[in-house]
């Protein structure tokens, strides 16, 4: 039952830093593997002269370490960051939903729908600002519908959003006329992910700044506002929240609607990345996002999770992808590895919690 304050504090610190350690572990592992691969490549290249252990030592000195350099370069770092933008913006909304004890499976479809909608509006000559606002609101409208069905009819979030996954996908194809939608290349939307100077960290692509800014805002909202604390209250114990006067149904509708805003933003980022609206894109994106949130330390049964954790979770997934492709591993290997990492992350979390209880 009781534990010393030091232990409890260090435990809390450890659980907050858990995802960080994961990220460091993943990058270190890949750096080591890439270095080994570089040395092995070097031996292969000069296999006439380099043989045995001494050859290995020679190769270690003479290798140009191209793979390792590619992984640790600023350009690669910026690439990973910009590739993380979509998943991380989606994870901002998903963190709220998962902390409240819910789930949203319709994100991939919503992203496809909003990206197609954005492209169509821009094509019709709408101004950037109005197109962005309408696109984001469309994402929010789907969330509002999800939330209303879940809170109003007391349906399971899993079922409602599973249905909405199909509805959203169908709507996207309908809006797009079943094909990809191009939009004017001079639109500011297309520059969101542009990288100007690959040799220096700054300036970061605009999209990364957007994601960072939204993450800071959300982090404050869920930690510091009454609205945010009520999310934790509902996810932690819905009966208690009700007893304490939290308007649980209203709160849930708001959670899904606000999350929808983020999914709409993610749709805009998708539009930038693909340079066109694709109604059959972003399939399975919701699972990447859920994985990021869970790797970041949130519990699927609700009541715990953090924005920082989810952001690092998104980075871990992208670092795995990036490292695997630099290792020249086939995509199926990446998929297997990411799957294993999700299970490991959650398993470690459970183990830590069960240790903490005793």
């Amino acid at each position, binding site marked *: 039952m009781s534990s010393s304050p030091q232990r409890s504090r260090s435990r809390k610190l450890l659980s907050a830093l858990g995802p960080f350690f994961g990220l460091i572990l993943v990058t270190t592992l890949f750096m080591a593997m890439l270095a080994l691969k570089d040395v092995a490549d070097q031996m292969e290249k000069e296999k006439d002269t380099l043989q045995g252990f001494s050859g290995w030592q020679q190769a270690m000195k003479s290798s140009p370490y191209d793979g390792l350099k590619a992984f640790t370069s600023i350009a690669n770092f910026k690439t990973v960051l910009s590739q993380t933008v979509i998943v991380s913006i989606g994870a901002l909304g998903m963190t709220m939903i998962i902390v409240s004890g819910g789930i949203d499976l319709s994100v991939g479809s919503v992203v496809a729908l909003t990206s197609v909608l954005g492209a169509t509006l821009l094509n019709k000559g709408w101004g950037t600002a109005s197109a962005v606002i309408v696109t984001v609101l469309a994402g929010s409208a789907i969330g509002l519908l999800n939330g209303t069905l879940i809170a109003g009819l007391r349906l399971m979030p899993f079922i409602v959003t599973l249905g909405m996954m199909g509805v959203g996908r169908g709507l996207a194809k309908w809006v797009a006329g079943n094909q990809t939608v191009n939009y004017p290349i001079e639109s500011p939307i297309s520059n969101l992910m542009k990288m100007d100077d690959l040799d220096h960290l700054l300036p970061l692509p605009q999209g990364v700044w957007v994601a960072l800014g939204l993450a800071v805002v959300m982090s404050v909202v869920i930690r510091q506002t009454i609205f945010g604390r009520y999310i934790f209250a509902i996810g932690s114990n819905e009966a*208690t929240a009700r*007893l*304490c006067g939290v308007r649980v149904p209203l709160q849930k509708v708001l959670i899904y609607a606000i999350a929808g805003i983020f999914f709409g933003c993610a749709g805009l980022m998708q539009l930038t990345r693909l340079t066109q609206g694709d109604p059959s894109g972003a399939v399975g994106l919701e699972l990447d996002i859920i994985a990021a949130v869970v790797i970041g330390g949130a519990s699927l049964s609700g009541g715990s999770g953090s924005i920082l954790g989810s952001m690092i979770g998104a980075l871990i997934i992208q670092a795995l992808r990036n490292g695997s492709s630099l290792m020249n591993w086939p995509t199926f290997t990446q998929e297997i590895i990411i799957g294993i990492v999700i299970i490991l992350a959650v398993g470690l979390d459970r183990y830590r919690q069960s240790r903490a209880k005793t």
Partner: protein
Amino acid sequence: MTPRLRMTGVRKAFGATQALRGVSFEIGRGEVHALIGENGAGKSTLMKVLSGAYQPDAGRLELDGVAFTPENPLHARQSGIAMIYQELTLAPDLSVEENILLGSEPARFGWINRPRRRELARRALAELHHETIPLDVPVGLLTIAEQQVVEIARALIGDPKVIIMDEPTSSLTQVDTENLFAVIGKLRQRGVSVVYISHFLEECQRLCHRFTVLRDGESVGTSDMRTAQLPEIIRLMVGREITEIYPQTPHTLGATVFSLKNVAGETKPRSVSLTLRAGEILGVAGLIGAGRTETLRACFGLDRLIAGTVEVFGREATRGTPTSRLDSGIGLLSENRKEEGLMLNRSLADNLTVTRLSPLARGGFINRRAQQDCTQRWMERLEVRAQSPAQPISELSGGNQQKIAIARLLHHEAKILLLDEPTRGIDVGSKAAIYRLIGQLAAEGKSILFVSSYLPELLGVCDTIAVMSRGVLVESRPTTQWTEHEIITAAIGSGSNDVSTHA
């Protein structure tokens, strides 16, 4: 003749609480034996020892004259002890047949012998003269009484020697109760012994041969049911003098702030009327299942009211939600601390301030510092033993958790406090602190509705005591005009007439 089952000197402690302090109990073949006692007297603990759920600290159990130490419920069941719990333990989606043989399916290599299973299920129901219950229907579609028959049929499968029934009639209608008595008669004829636990003494009188009274974890008397008088049994149940010291804080009663008129919920309560005045501590006594919790929940807007009116501070406010009740200054302390009352994985500060965050926030943004300071102040005032306001509440003892749950109402500045079993499952020191606090609150002019199953605390703390029985608030009087005996009589619902005719 050796008795079927004999228990001697059984003791069991939970931490510092001595739940059983030497119980002896004995039941013969084919006997129906009533186990009687107030809430918390140790009946359930004793039966859990017998059915293998708890290991006794001391004492001896004998089954048919042979020493018997049930290691777990399965072992007890295989030895011939079957327990039928107050809440039914059937799987509602499985069929009657599947439920009866659940866990003891006739099978070879994991392959169920369906014709045999059907035969066994049919035979079990036939023995209870309930062949009419269809075997293929999901149990969830049956009436409660039929479900209970299925439950008993399941107990019969292991060919039990002793069946324990814990409050079997608490959710039954009169007709169903009669049917159950017929079933018990059948069991007796088979030579099965039945331990019958019930608060309803008149049922015990009709049904049982002998009775044993438990009080404060001790067996205080065993006697023949036919020659016993109801007042005598009640005297044995109550027994003790009120020795615990309840701190008295002088307080005066003001105007009526909260009143219920003929309030009824969907199943319970059936009819409750009461008035609560400023500075009043109003106790609500009754047996478990009398509808006291349901009354509080309905008043607080957690459950639906189907009839009656509620007035808050002189204004009609029958319809309400928890949010509106909190807004009008009413707070509820849930009896179910772990499942409803608290967010166990959140901090003390989060739990304490959740209903009223606005004074700790500016423009919707919570000031963490202020939240922690505020929590710290309440922790000091209520002497909560914890490391810091940021500590998860699950790490605290029950008493300290309860203090935080009450502090939530104080922080909310509730003027009317609905307290449901505020001292359940907490240590004596915390209990005394809570009694003292309730007295102080009344002195400040706050009103307290105090539901408790522990009579001495109601008698020690309350200005007025109301008694509920089977969903109805039967009587309310100033505490000084009640005796413990009268309260129990009213709660059991046999009515004072019954007692006097027997006397």
